[in-house]
C-alpha cells in the first residue's frame, strides 16, 4: 500500500498530507519530486495543495507540464486511485485528467473558511465509505476555486456520475456548487477543500469523522481493513 505524494516547486500542503497519511492512517507514503518518475508498483497517488510555480499564469498550468505528470497519466489509465486536492485538483484539470477549469472565486479574494460538502458519488476510491448526501465539514483555502464547465460538459458530468462533491451552500460561484469531480472511470478525483486539514479532532472544530472517511475509503480500496 504505497502512496505517492507528488511535490512540485511551491507545493505547500505536501507535508500536511504526508503527516495525515502516515501518522493518522498508517499508509506507507513517500514524496516524489516533480522531475522524477513514479514507480510501477505504486498503489495510489496524491497531488497536494499549495502554489505550484506561485500560481503564475493560472493555478496549476505550469505544473501540469512537469515530467511526473506523464507518469500520473499512465497510472491513471491503469485505474490506480489518484487524488488532487486544491492545487492538486487545479493541476489535474490543467493536465486534462479531469474536465473543467477552476476560475478566480467570485469574491475575487482568497477564501479560507469552513464549508460543508455533500457527497454525490460514493463510487470512487475516495468516497466508497460514504452514504450519498452525507455531509462533510471541511475547510477550503484557495483563490482560484470556482469550478466551471460549459453546458455540454456539465451534461456529460451528470450522465457519467462524475460530480463527487457539492458545497451545501453557495461558496464561491462554482457551477452547480461543484467542489469535486472525477474522471469517467472514477479513479481520478479532484477536490478543492482540504481533507488533510479536517481529519484530526484537535484542529477540526466541528467533526473529524466524515472527512476521515475519504482516507478510510482509500484504505478499503487498497484492501486494508481498518
Amino acid at each position: 500500500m504505497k502512496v505517492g505524494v507528488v511535490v512540485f516547486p511551491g507545493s505547500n500542503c505536501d507535508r500536511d498530507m504526508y503527516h495525515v497519511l502516515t501518522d493518522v492512517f498508517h499508509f506507507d507514503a513517500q514524496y516524489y519530486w516533480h522531475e522524477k518518475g513514479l514507480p510501477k508498483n505504486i498503489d495510489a497517488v496524491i497531488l497536494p495543495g499549495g502554489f505550484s510555480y506561485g500560481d503564475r499564469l493560472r493555478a496549476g498550468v505550469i505544473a501540469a507540464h512537469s515530467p511526473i505528470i506523464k507518469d500520473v497519466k499512465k497510472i491513471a489509465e491503469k485505474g490506480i486511485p489518484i487524488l488532487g486536492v486544491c492545487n492538486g485538483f487545479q493541476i489535474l484539470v490543467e493536465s486534462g485528467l479531469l474536465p473543467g477549469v477552476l476560475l478566480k472565486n467570485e469574491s475575487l479574494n482568497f477564501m479560507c473558511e469552513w464549508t460543508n460538502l455533500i457527497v454525490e458519488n460514493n463510487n470512487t476510491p475516495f468516497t466508497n465509505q460514504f452514504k450519498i448526501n452525507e455531509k462533510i465539514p471541511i475547510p477550503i483555502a484557495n483563490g482560484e476555486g470556482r469550478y466551471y464547465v460549459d453546458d455540454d460538459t456539465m451534461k456529460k458530468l451528470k450522465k457519467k456520475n462524475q460530480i463527487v462533491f457539492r458545497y451545501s451552500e453557495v461558496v464561491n460561484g462554482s457551477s452547480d456548487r461543484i467542489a469535486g469531480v472525477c474522471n469517467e472511470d472514477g479513479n481520478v478525483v479532484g477536490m478543492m477543500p482540504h481533507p488533510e486539514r479536517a481529519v484530526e479532532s484537535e484542529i477540526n472544530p466541528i467533526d473529524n469523522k466524515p472527512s476521515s472517511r475519504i482516507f478510510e475509503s482509500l484504505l478499503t480500496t487498497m484492501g486494508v481493513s481498518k
Partner: protein
Amino acid sequence: MSLEDQELSELKSKIGREPTPTELQIVAAEWSEHCSYKSSKRHLKMLPMTGPLVINEKGYDSGVLDVGDGYVVTAHIESHNHPSAVEPYGGAATGVGGVIRDILSAGTRPIAIFDGLRFGNVEKDLQARWLFKNAVTGIADYGNCLGIPTIGGEVEFDECYENYALVDVAALGFGKKEHLIKNHAKKGDIVVLMGGSTGRDGIGGSQFASDSLESEDRSAVQIPDPFIEKLIIEAVLQARNDGLIHAMKDLGGGGLSCAISETADALEIGIEMDVDKVHTRESGMHPSEIMVSESQERMLIVTSKIKLKKLQTICEKFRIGCSMIGQVKSDNQVHVKKGKKTFANLSADVVANATLLDLPSKKPVYLKTIETEKKFKPISDYSKTLMKLLSSPNIASKIWVYGQYDHEVGIRTVVKPGKDASVLRLDNGKFLSAKIDGNPKHCYINPREGAIGCFEEACRNVVCTGAKPIGMLDHLQFGNPKDPEIFWTFLESLKGLTDFAKFFEIPCVGGKVSLYNETPKGPIKPTPVIGVIGLIDKKPSVSQKISEGDCLIIIGNTKNELGGSEFFEYVHKFVGGKCPVVNFDDSKKNMNSVLDLIKNNLIKSAHDCSKGGLAVAVSEMCMTNQIGCTVSLDKVPGDKLTVDRILFSESHSRYLLSFDKKNLSKIKDLLKNNKISFKEIGKFGGENIQFNNKIQSVVKLNVEKTHRVWLNSLSDLILHGKTS
C-alpha cells in the same frame, strides 16, 4: 543616500583616510537608523532579554525560546511602513518576506505569521481604503503562497495615519534545538549568496525607511516574489538538515552591505567578496549599487569548501541562484572587490557599529492638558450607541481580513483567528499561543501606561487560551526622534514595557524600532505594538459553545478610564481623558486565576475586555455563540460610575468568563481564595444582548441582527463604500 557631515568626519577619522564612493554607500546604509539603531540602541538595553527559556547565540535575527523536549520556538517582528505607504501591496508583502527570512536564518521552519495594520480613517478617506485593501492582499498573497498560516493580528484606523500606513508583521518558527544554526566561521570558509537575483529595485530602502515620506524615493519600492522565497525556505531547511550551513543571515535593510559587515563583526572574521560573482538581474550595476541593493528573497550563507558542492546541488534542485561571492579571512575587514580591483576595504567593526546617539528628551506640552475631560452631550439611546460602535471599523469583525489569509495550512492551528489569541499545536504535545496588540489612542494620552496596556492586553489574550506568557516582542514605532518631545514618548513607552516585563518575568526575545514615521500632517501617535507568546503544557482552552442558562462572571475592576477609548474617540470625537492604567499586582493575580480556572476545567470560555469595553466584549461573546445575555451593570465591580463609563471604559486586567452554572461555587471559591475582585454579572439565554441598570433596561439588541452588522460592516465599507 548619504552620511551627515559629522558622521562623515567621524568615518574619516576612524579609517584615517578619505573613504571611496563605494565605502560611503556601504557605511551610509549600515549607519542608517534602520540598520544601526543609533538613536535607540543604548536605551533598548534596559529591556530584560534573558530568562530560563531564552537561548542566546551571536548573530541571530530572531529570538529563540526553549519549549522543551529538544524543541525551540523562534520569534521576530518587523515593519514595512514607508514602503507600504507608497506601494501597499508590495510593501506589505515584502514585509512578510523579510520577517520570515529572519526566522529561517536561525535554522527553524516558519510556522505562523501575525499582522498589525494601521491606516487613516477608512470611512472618509479613499486613499486609506486603497492602502488597507492592498496591504491585506499583499500579506495574503505572500503568506498564502509560502504556505505559512497567518493566524492573528489586529487592524486599527486612526486619523494620525492619514496618507500613511503602519504594516507590522511578526512570525514564529519551530524546530529542533540541535538544528539551530550555530553561526560560526573560520578562515577559508566560503560566502554564498543564495536566492533571487540582485537588481536596482529597493536601492536605498533602509535609508528610505529612516527618512520622512516627503522625499519619496521611487526606486526604493520592491517587487515581492513569494515563489522564490518558498523555494529558499525549502532549500535552506534541507541544507540545514544536511549540516551544510556554518552561519546564515538574511538580506534585509542595507542589503549586502549590512549582511556582510554584520556577519563579519558578529563572528569576528573578515570577509572578502567580489561583486562580479553576485548574480544580478540587470547589467552594468555599479559595485555600490550591488552592495546596497535591497532586492528581496536573498540569503547569505557561510559554508566550507567541501560542503559547497552539496549546497549547490540543493540550489539546483530548487532552481534558485547560488553564487559563491567571497571567502572568510582572518583580518576582520570587509573587503569588496570587483575582479581584482578593490572598491571598499573597511574594518567590520567600524561599519557595523555606528556611533550611538544620546538624543535629548522633553515631556510634550500637550500632555499637560490631555487628561482634562470635556462635557459631553448625554447619550439618549445606548442601544444605538452600542450598535454604532459594533459596526465601527475598529471594532467590527476582522473576518474580511483573516478570511483572506490561509490560517489552516501547516495543520497546527487549534484556535483559529476571530477569538482572542490563536493557538498552534507543537510536535512535542505542547501548544503555543500568541497575539500582537497595540493601542496608539491610549499611548498618545499616556505613552508609558499606554504601552504597558498593550503588553497586558496581549498577555490577557494569550491567557484566555490557557497559556502562560513566556516571551515578548516589541515593536516601537514613533515619529522623528530628533524631536525631544517625540523621543520622550519613546523613552516612556520603553520604560513602561521594561517595568512590566521585569515584574512578570517575561523576557523580550525580539523587537524592532521604527522611527521617522511622519505623515504630511505630522508625527504618528506613539505606536508600540507588542507580541506575546504563551506556552500551554497540556491542553489549550478551546471555547465551548455557550448555552442557555450559562453564567457570566467578570474578573477585575472597571474604573473611570475612558481616555483614548473608542467611545470617546468614535462616538464623542474626543481625544483626551484618563487612559487605563494597569495595576501590576491585580494584573498578575487576575492572570493566574484565569489560568487556574482553565486548568481546573471550570469554564467554557474566557474573553478579555478591551476595545469598546464591557459592552463590546459581552456582545462579542453573544454574537460568536449566537445566544443572548442579560447583564446587570449595577453589579459590575470597581469604581462607582455612570452607565456610559461602566459600559465603555477600557480598564485593563478584566476577563469575562462563561461557564455552566454547576461550577459557580467552585469558581467563586477559587477566586475568593485568590483575593480577586469579581462578580457574577449576567446569565446567557434568549435572543437579546441586554444591559440593565438595576431594574432599568439600558441596552437591548437582537443578537442575530447585531451579529450580521458586526460581521459585514468592514467588508461592506471596504468593498462597496457603505457606511452603516
